[in-house]
């Protein structure tokens, strides 16, 4: 346990620089985006009011009030989210491969630690999870910040103030990151975590058997997906609507647990018996 925490800390610090850059980009871009979008709205509004000499009501009728929703639709807002997601997706592979292909072969050290090797796997997965949650938290903190920027820039008559919830519910993609209840939050990220574990196992297949391992890894991935969607497939095609929602939910939980256990068991086996430097 102790060594596992040390490993997580170690892995965490290894990625910290890039991670801080990601956070920096997110903060800068989203604040900038709020300023730019608000500014653009002000320009458009000024144009209507002072160039086209519309009444305030007519201008509002045409342009509408601005809300944080409009800011979330800009590339300034979504761009950094996409960058963070893509970076973490790449990092999911990088976190393993750099130990083999880095300048120094750190994998020797990792595999020779006097602790169960599966701890290395858990530590890497935990690190990814920690990083994801960290970014999610930052994003959550950035919402009121961006909203405040909007409030500073736009007079109250021209804007609609949204609560954080309203901002989230008005934008589908954000609902994936921040579902409305804690249960769903747990479900979303549990699925995400399961995906990470399955990808890790596939990577370990590749690292154990190289070219052949890619095939094994893909098969394993397909197998995991099949198990996971099996209840839904049964529900949709084999026994249409046979299960009640709560049952389907329970089955999905079981399927998810099966996938996760299978991944961990397989990875443990590969790390113990098949991995090579």
């Amino acid at each position, binding site marked *: 346990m102790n*060594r596992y925490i*040390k490993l997580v800390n*170690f892995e965490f610090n*290894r990625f910290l620089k890039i991670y801080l850059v990601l956070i920096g980009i997110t903060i800068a871009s989203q604040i900038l985006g709020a300023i730019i979008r608000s500014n653009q709205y002000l320009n458009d509004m000024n144009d209507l009011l002072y160039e086209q000499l519309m009444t305030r009501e007519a201008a509002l009728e045409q342009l509408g009030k601005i809300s944080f929703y409009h800011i979330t639709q800009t590339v300034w807002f979504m761009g950094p989210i996409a960058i963070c997601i893509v970076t973490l997706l790449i990092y999911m592979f990088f976190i393993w491969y750099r130990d083999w292909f*880095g*300048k*120094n*072969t*750190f994998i*020797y*050290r990792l*595999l*020779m*630690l*006097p*602790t*169960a*090797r599966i701890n290395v796997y858990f530590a890497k997965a935990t690190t990814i999870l920690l990083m994801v949650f960290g970014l999610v938290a930052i994003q959550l903190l950035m919402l009121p910040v961006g909203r405040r920027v909007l409030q500073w820039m736009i007079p109250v008559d021209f804007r609609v103030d949204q609560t954080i919830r309203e901002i989230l519910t008005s934008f589908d993609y954000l609902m994936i990151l921040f579902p409305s209840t804690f249960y769903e939050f747990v479900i979303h990220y549990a699925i995400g975590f399961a995906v990470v574990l399955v990808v890790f196992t596939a990577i370990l297949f590749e690292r*154990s058997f190289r070219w052949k391992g890619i095939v094994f890894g893909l098969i394993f991935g397909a197998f995991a997906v099949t198990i996971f969607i099996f209840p839904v497939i049964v529900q949709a095609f084999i026994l249409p609507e046979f299960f009640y929602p709560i049952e389907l939910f329970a089955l999905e939980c079981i399927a998810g647990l099966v996938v996760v256990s299978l991944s961990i068991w397989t990875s443990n086996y590969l790390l113990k*018996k*098949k*991995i*090579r*430097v």
Partner: protein
Amino acid sequence: MIEVKDVKKRFGRKEVLKGVSFTAEKGEITCLIGINGVGKTTIMNAIVALTPINSGQILIDGEELHKGSYEKITFIPDAITMLPQMRIIDAMQFMDDFYDCWNEKRAEEILSFFKLDKQERIANLSKGNTAKVNLLLGLAMDVDYILMDEPFSGIDIFSREQIAEVFTSHLIEDRGVIITTHEINDIEHLIDKVVLLNEGYVLKEFSTEEIRENEGKSVIDVMREVYQS
């Protein structure tokens, strides 16, 4: 005692080890010599479970390797196993974090013996100093067995001498050492035992002193005999 019993290993279709057996005693320096092939490193990797074997058995003091074994046996590969961005002190801290058998005092001693500056980053070290740090990380562990893969390869002569000195020092006193090399000259007087490998087989396993005493042959003589026949 490390016992390697009939170990076979294939990479793809190529059989690298075709049934290798030998033993290495605690308190002795055993040298794996092979003139070609990857067999030596593969054996080393196999002993510390960094590569799976296809058949055979490897025992360390009578038991198969498990996670706790890494407090008892360590492997110093031919390249350093720490991250380039780490300073020497970070690498030492890492070892201290993860190994109960890490001996800080000994590490400091080796550090001054090798005249290394522990604030230096691994990436900035010379080749010779990198090898020394690599050695330091293994030697400062209170382990029973140390495996070294080609500790002398590609290093300047002075570093080589310093490293050779380690072998006669208390740093490896009473431990079992397995070392691989393709150049026996530097260490001929330092080793207890030679295992001659070729193409996946053990051609001959002998004690250096015995072969000198009984047959009046040097290690090179034996190698010449064995490899040329």
